[in-house]
């Protein structure tokens, strides 16, 4: 079973697009669901932490896999 409800591939996109796409995806999801985000922008690591702090959505995990950054975010 997948540990997320929806996946967003933001590979190749630069600031602020990964955040904006994530925000849009989360808006269409319901509370408690988890969004998996894949990004290649190194700045997104700090940005998704900041996004979570400011929006109340919970950043469950943040990791790097072969040059890609993977985030799991739970909608508040």
């Amino acid at each position: 079973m997948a540990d997320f409800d929806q996946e967003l591939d933001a590979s190749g996109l630069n600031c602020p697009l990964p955040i904006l796409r994530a925000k849009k995806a989360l808006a269409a999801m319901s509370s408690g669901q988890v969004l998996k985000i894949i990004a290649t922008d190194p700045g997104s690591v700090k940005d998704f932490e900041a996004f979570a702090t400011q929006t109340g959505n919970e950043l469950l995990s943040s990791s790097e896999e072969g040059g890609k950054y993977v985030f799991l975010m739970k909608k508040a």
Partner: protein
Amino acid sequence: MEEKKLAIIATKGTLDWAYPPFILASTAAALGYETQIFFTFYGLQLLKKRLNLKVSPLGNPGMPMPMGMDVWFPNLALALPGMEAMMTTMMKKKMASKGVASLEDLRELCLEADVKFVACQMTVDLFDMDHSAFIDGVEYGGAATFFEFAGDSDICLYI
């Protein structure tokens, strides 16, 4: 949590300077800020239906240039016809290759996120511009209109 507010004044009309207002406004909106941009003087170019913004190397010694062009071209040569168009093309290509959004896309994302655009009517008149040249959804007002929103803002930026 009460909604925070961001007020921006956009005064520049070049390709490079068009980015900060739209990047910050769209991101702020995604973070839950109520956001407004007041466009005045050359910033009005950012509201044109057809964006035709350019970047100029003139008077900009901080602009990195490819292939060591900054060494080969003294400042005077940068004023040659075609230099601005060439720099603009190169900058757009570079941005696209790095996954940087186009200005049109960022502007659209701002509008989708309910960022409010206000154009300075005084400078619209000053430059003999017509409302029909601007995108839909723009409001027109003056300094007092700006302060009505900016007076309650948490962050206020002049760009």
